[in-house]
C-alpha cells in the first residue's frame, strides 16, 4: 500500500518536472516578459506575429489588471516584467505615480491622439472600449432610451438600470464624469442612481447576462461584452445603445501599455508597443476583438459607429489614474452600492 503511494508521488514529480521543462525555455537577450491584463485569447495571436517579425520572444503572464499592478508594486525594481498591458487606466496611473514606468519614445506616443496618452508619457492607449447602455429589446422600445446617461436618474428608470459600482470601468466612467461636470454634479447623479435603487452587479458581463435574461431592462457596460454574449447565443434580445457622441456616458476607456522603468531590455520592450500600435496590429484588434483601434485611419470594428464621432479628446486621461481614490469615495458616499 505504501509502495503504491510512493509510486504515485514519483509519478507526480516526474510529470511536474516534465511539464515545467516544457513550459520554460532559457531566456535570451531577445526575450521580454509581458504582464498582460488582457486575456490570452485576445492578444496571443498578435504576440506571435510580433515574434515572427522581430525575432523577439514574448513571455506573457496573464492576470487581472489590478492584481498585476499589485504584483508589480510588490516586486519593485526586481520585477521580471518588461512590459505591462492593463485594461484599467487607473492601475497604470498608480504605477506611474510610484515611478515604476519609463517614459515612452515619441514614435510611440505620437501614434495616437494625445487624449489617449498619459500626461507624463509613461503609458499609451492601445485600444478602446466605449461605454454603452445595453438594453433588452423585448422589454424596452427604442424611444424609451435616454438621450443622455444623466437622464437615467429619472424616476421612470427606477430599479431598471443595472450598474457595477465596484468595477474598474464604472469607476473610470465616474472619474470622467467628475472631470467633465465637476464633483457636485457627479455626486448628484450617483445619488440619483442610488435613489432609483439601481440593481448592482459585480461586473459588466453579469449585467449583460441579466439584461439578456430579462432580469433588468438595461445596464451601463462596455460595448464588447454584449457582442461576446451574442456570439455565444445569437437569440439573446440584448442590444447595445450608443449614447450621443457628446454625452459623457459615451466615454472611451483605453487598454493601455507601458514599459517598466526596471526593464533590462527597454528597447525590445518599446518595440512591442510600436508593434501593437502598427497599422496591421490595430486592424487586427478591430477585426478580432471588436475593440476600437486608437491609431487614426484604422476603421472601427464592422457594424459599430466610428470612434471619431465620439467625444474623446475632451477627457483628461491623466485624471483617470490619479483621481481614482477620490472617485471611489464619491461612489461610496452616494449609497449606490447596494
Amino acid at each position: 500500500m505504501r509502495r503504491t503511494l510512493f509510486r504515485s508521488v514519483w509519478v507526480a514529480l516526474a510529470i511536474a518536472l516534465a511539464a515545467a521543462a516544457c513550459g520554460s525555455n532559457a531566456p535570451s537577450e531577445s526575450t521580454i516578459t509581458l504582464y498582460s491584463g488582457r486575456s490570452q485569447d485576445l492578444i496571443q495571436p498578435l504576440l506571435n506575429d510580433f515574434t515572427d517579425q522581430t525575432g523577439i520572444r514574448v513571455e506573457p503572464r496573464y492576470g487581472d489588471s489590478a492584481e498585476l499592478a499589485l504584483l508589480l508594486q510588490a516586486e519593485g525594481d526586481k520585477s521580471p516584467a518588461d512590459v505591462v498591458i492593463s485594461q484599467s487606466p487607473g492601475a497604470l496611473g498608480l504605477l506611474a505615480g510610484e515611478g515604476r514606468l519609463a517614459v515612452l519614445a515619441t514614435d510611440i506616443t505620437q501614434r495616437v491622439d494625445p487624449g489617449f496618452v498619459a500626461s507624463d508619457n509613461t503609458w499609451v492607449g492601445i485600444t478602446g472600449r466605449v461605454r454603452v447602455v445595453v438594453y433588452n429589446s423585448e422589454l424596452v422600445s427604442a424611444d424609451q432610451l435616454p438621450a443622455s446617461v444623466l437622464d437615467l436618474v429619472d424616476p421612470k428608470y427606477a430599479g431598471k438600470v443595472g450598474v457595477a459600482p465596484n468595477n474598474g470601468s464604472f469607476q473610470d466612467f465616474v472619474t470622467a464624469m467628475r472631470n467633465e461636470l465637476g464633483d457636485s454634479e457627479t455626486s448628484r447623479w450617483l445619488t440619483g442612481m442610488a435613489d432609483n435603487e439601481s440593481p448592482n452587479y459585480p461586473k459588466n458581463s453579469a449585467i449583460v447576462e441579466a439584461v439578456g435574461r430579462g432580469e433588468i431592462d438595461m445596464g451601463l457596460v462596455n460595448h464588447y461584452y454584449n457582442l461576446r454574449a451574442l456570439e455565444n447565443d445569437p437569440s439573446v434580445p440584448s442590444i447595445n445603445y450608443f449614447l450621443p457622441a457628446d454625452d459623457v456616458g459615451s466615454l472611451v476607456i483605453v487598454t493601455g501599455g507601458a514599459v517598466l522603468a526596471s526593464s533590462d531590455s527597454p528597447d525590445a520592450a518599446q518595440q512591442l508597443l510600436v508593434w501593437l500600435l502598427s497599422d496591421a496590429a490595430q486592424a487586427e484588434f478591430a477585426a478580432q476583438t471588436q475593440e476600437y483601434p486608437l491609431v487614426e485611419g484604422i476603421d472601427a470594428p464592422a457594424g459599430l459607429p466610428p470612434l471619431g464621432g465620439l467625444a474623446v479628446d475632451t477627457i483628461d486621461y491623466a485624471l483617470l489614474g490619479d483621481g481614482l481614490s477620490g472617485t471611489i469615495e464619491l461612489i461610496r458616499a452616494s449609497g449606490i452600492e447596494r
Partner: protein
Amino acid sequence: MVSNADRGSRVRLPHSLAAAVAVIGVFFVGPFAYVVWRNVDLGTDLGGVVFESRTIEPLRHSLWLGIAVAVSSSVIGTGLAWLTIRTDLPGRAFWRLAAPLPLVFPSFVGATALMAGFASGGLVDEILSPLGVSSLPDMRGFRGAWLVLTLFTYPYVYLPVAARLSALAPSLEESARLLGRGPWAVFRTVVLPQTRNAIWAGSLLVFLYAVSDFGAVTLLGYDTLTEQIYSDKLFDQPRAMALALLLGGVALVVVFVERAVDRRRQRIEISRSRNALTVELGRWRWPSVAAVAVFLGNALLGPIAVLGFWAWRGLSSDLESVGLRTDVGSLFMPAVHSAAAGLLTAVVAVAVVLPVAWATARYRSRLGSAANSMIVAGFALPGVVIALSLVFWAIDAPVLQRWYQTLPLLIVAYVLHFGAQATRAAQVAVDAAPRRLGDAAATLGAGRLRRFATVELPLMMPGLLAGAGLVMLSTMKELPATLLLAPIGFDTLATEIWGASDSGALAQGAVASLVLVAVSAVLSWAVVIRRIENY
C-alpha cells in the same frame, strides 16, 4: 474497544519533533507577518478602519455567512458520509465517488451556473414557466451565497468524516443494533460521538472558506470583508490591508475557541477492524437515496448540466466566433499542470503539517497549538494576499529569489494557503492511531521510525488521504496565486476557465470547467477514495 486516553496530560515533546514544529510554524507565520508589516508600513489607522460603520456590516455578514454555511455543511456532510460509508444505500459506490466532487467547482463558476439556472429568465425559469410557475426565489444576497457555498463546501466535512467512519470499528454499532436500536438512534448515540472530532475539523474549514471566499459573494452581491478587501486592494491599500488583518484575527479567534472546546472534549481512541458493517436502512432505503440524489443533483449535476449546455451551445454553433476556442485538445497541458500541481501540493502539505498535527494531537503541545493556529489562519487570508506575501519574502531573499515564479515556490504558496485543510484532517488521523498500539510495538522492540511506518502510518492513512484529497481539489481550482506566481506558460484549468470568462467566451470556459471536474473525479478516485476504502 473504547478507552479514554489520558486527557489533559502533557508529555514532553521530543526535541527533534519540537524543532520541526518550530520551523514549520515560522514558515506559516510568513503571510500573517507580511500583513502586519504592510499595516505598519502604510501607517494604517487600524482602530479607525475596524470600528467604522462600513466595516461593521461586512464583518457581520462574514461571520453570519461563515457560521450558517458551517452549520448546514456539517449536517449535510456528516449525513452523507454515514449514508455512503455505513449503510446499504443503493448505488453507494457511485455516491462515494460523486460526493467529494462539488468541492472542485471554483465558486465563481458555481455562482454563475446557479444564477444562469435559477435567476429570473434563467434556464429553470424557461423550463418551468410553461408549467405555470411564475416566480422563482431571489438568489441574490445572503440566500444565494449561503446556498452556493453550502453546495460546494460540504466536502470539507464529508471527507474527514467518511475517513473517520471507515476507520471505525463497527463493534459498538453492531451492539447497538443487536439491542434493537434503529438506524437513527445508532447514528445519534454511537456514530456521532465518535465522529465529532472530524465534524468539528471540517466545519472549521468550511467557516474559513466561507469568510475568505470572493467569487460567490461578489457574483451574488453579498458584501463581506473579503469582498471589501478585493474592491479596496488597489486604490485604498491601507484599508484593504487593515481588513486582511481583521480577517486573520477572526480566524485566530475561531481557532482558539475551537481548540478550547477541543481540549475539554473526551478523547476516544478506537482500534479498527476489517469487518465492514452495513446498517440496513430498511424502509428508509429509498427515501435516503432520493435525498442523496436530490442533493448531489443540485451540487454536482446541476452545475454540470448548465456547463454542458453552454459547451454544447458553443460547440454546435456554426457562427464564426471571435476568439472562441473550444478545442478540447488545447486543454491537455493545462489539465496535466493542474493534476501535477494538485498531487504535489497534496503530498507536500500532508508531509509538512503531519509533525504539527502529531505534536498537537499526541502531546497537546503549546508550541504545536501555536503553529497550528498560524497554519489555519493562512486559510482565512485571501489568495492574493498569500501570493503577495510570498513575493515580499522571496523577491529580495538571496536564495529564494532564484526560485521566484517557479513551480517549487508556487507549491509553497499553495501549501501556505491550504495547509489548514491537511492539518485538521491530520489531527483527526493522529487521534485515530491509538497510543496503545505504538506502545505495544515499542515493548516488542520496534524502533521509533519502524513503529511509525508499520503501525501508526497505516492507521492514519484514511485521515491523511482525506486531508490530501481536500488539498488536491482546492489546489486544482486555485486562481489568484496561480496567476501571479506560476512559471510563465504554466496554464492550469483554473486559469483557462478564468481567461475564458474574462474574455466572455462562455462555451470555452464551460468546456474547461467540465475537464476540471473530470480530472478531479479521476484523481480523487485513484488517490483518495479507492484507498480510503481499502484501508
